[in-house]
């Protein structure tokens, strides 16, 4: 297992350098030289410009600059935001819990509905129920989620008044940020009703963000279920006279879930990309909205650092998924 882990980890090293190279190149590919970009809209004197070029090391050879950049990245120095003047890493870490909270609830929503629905469709293959599930999941898969979010806001927030339109918590509550996970912070605080309010704020964004993963999980569970149900050992289990519930729930489900785990891992990228749109619609203060705002404010160090960190998160999650996959399925672990 350790060997499997180390092989997977080593495979990430070229990707890590590739990603840093990409973010390093990004800020240099934007028209105009980096100091003008760092200085932002306001002008700058030629002397100051030359001094800053020297200070940031932009007058050195590119290779040297890259080595310098990598050194900074490895030490956790991703530069400072042009707008807030705070370190990018700190900003990211402060906002990331909001995105994790949203993404976690979205994937829970997707699993709670997607798994049973997928199993149901697989067991009832070819029947109207199966066709309905497949049609709905393809619709969900084709959904422009920024529009889906607006529709749900019109229906639930504007017409029915059930949920708030934006944000994470009502202004009436004041919560000390301890973990930056609103659900946990509100539970820890003494404010009455704050937890329920936070939950209210979370419902719509989580549904919107979870829609595409839900469709993917339902489809994947169904097809994986179909594959397993045609195996010989399932026929044996049926022939032994086991109840259908036992055959499906115990024998089939275990093996059917293996590919689903991978698919869930792959959804992390979808979730983070979807978070960009979902957070923009619901004014959710996470990294997705932060990245979009940073781009529109031309805050390039934030964009540069944010992209690198998002890529690192995805690489880490993919590594964990690979490991989990190896744990569940020994055939993968021992394959050379």
């Amino acid at each position, binding site marked *: 297992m350790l060997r499997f882990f180390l092989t997977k980890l080593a495979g990430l090293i070229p*990707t890590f350098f*590739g990603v840093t190279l990409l973010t390093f190149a990004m800020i240099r590919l934007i028209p105009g030289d980096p100091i003008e970009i760092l200085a932002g809209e306001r002008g700058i004197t030629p002397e100051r410009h030359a001094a800053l070029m020297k200070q940031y090391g932009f007058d050195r050879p590119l290779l040297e600059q890259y080595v310098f950049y990598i050194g900074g990245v490895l030490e956790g120095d991703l530069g400072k935001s042009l707008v807030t003047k705070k370190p990018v890493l700190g900003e990211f870490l402060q906002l990331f819990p909001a995105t994790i909270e949203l993404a976690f609830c979205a994937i829970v929503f997707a699993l709670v509905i997607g798994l049973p629905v997928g199993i149901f469709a697989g067991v009832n293959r070819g029947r109207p129920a199966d066709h309905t599930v497949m049609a709905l999941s393809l619709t969900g898969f084709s959904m422009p989620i920024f529009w889906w979010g607006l*529709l749900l806001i019109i229906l639930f927030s504007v017409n029915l008044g059930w949920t708030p339109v934006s944000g994470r918590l009502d202004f009436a509550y004041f919560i000390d940020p301890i973990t930056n996970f609103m659900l946990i912070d509100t539970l820890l605080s003494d404010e009455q009703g704050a937890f329920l309010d936070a939950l209210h704020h979370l419902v719509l964004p989580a549904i919107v963000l979870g829609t595409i993963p839900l469709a993917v999980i339902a489809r994947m569970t169904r097809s994986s279920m179909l594959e397993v149900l045609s195996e010989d050992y399932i026929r044996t289990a049926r022939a032994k006279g086991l109840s259908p519930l036992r055959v499906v729930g115990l024998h089939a489900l275990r093996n059917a879930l293996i590919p689903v785990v991978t698919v869930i891992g792959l959804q992390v990228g979808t979730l983070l990309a979807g978070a960009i749109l979902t957070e923009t619609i619901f004014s959710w203060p996470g990294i997705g909205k932060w990245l979009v705002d940073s781009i529109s404010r031309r805050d390039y160090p934030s964009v540069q650092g944010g992209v690198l960190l998002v890529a690192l998160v995805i690489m880490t999650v993919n590594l964990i998924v690979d490991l989990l996959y190896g744990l569940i399925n020994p055939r993968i672990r021992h394959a050379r």
Partner: protein
Amino acid sequence: MPADPTTVAVAEPGSVPASGPAPLHPAKELWFSFCENKGALAGLVVIVIVSLLAIFADLVSPHPPLQQYRDAFLTPPMWVEGGRAEFLLGTDDVGRDIFSRLIHGARYSLLIGCIVITLSLSSGVLLGLSAGYFRGVVEELIMRLMDVMLSIPSLLLAIVIVAILGPGLLNAVVAVAVTYLPHFTRIMRAAVIGEMTKEYVTASRVAGAGRLRLMFATVLPNCMAPLIVLATLSFSSAILDAAALGFLGLGAQPPTPEWGTMLAKAREFVQSAWWVVTFPGLAVLITVLAFNLAGDGLRDALDPRLKR
């Protein structure tokens, strides 16, 4: 892809010996297999309708897409109280006919899909073919680069590229095309590696075929099936992603009647004018769904083994 059996059936007359029932022409077989899937057929019908609307947009749409009617700001759809018969789906905040804008928007969406697929398909084929044919260092370099691109969510990568190039429809299209490149390259490489071990390739090599001939004339045509499927399915994602960029203000710029761009300002009207929000998104959903249905059907028809 119009249903025209005569053009597919009459292929190379005289080449089929007249004895016994001639096997179906592959294209015809594909068509029959595709038609078995009702959903795919429905998708194809929608695609044809949307394409026709896009081509004849100037003739079909009741109003010019940019024409502002000063007396008709935010008019509701005609069947709602206060609606006017001349504005079928209502008007937006500056009095433009939404129906006409949607019809013209079909042009942008279909064009975006076509350009994205052309760009990423052609470069993906080149890269994947080189990786699968040469192997070794070339393969490592290309595939590692693709790994890097895949470790950034496609929408985020597209946003970064647009940030570098500047907002605009063309730059958004290029950005989306770049993000799809890894998928095409990977599929192409896998298909090429699979084909390279087959005997017909060896035979062709022994017969003295040159490198370029082997790559493009011998191997490439046999790798097309998975590429065609991926292209159809990516077409729908391209429309979605370009619309998302438009929504974020990074794609087509106002007053372009691009569907995503039309939604960018619609957020202000969720409280007051639902029709401004509803219809552009519905247009995206229907078009994307149609391409996904047709893509699924095409995959099943091209590769019966995948059929369930």
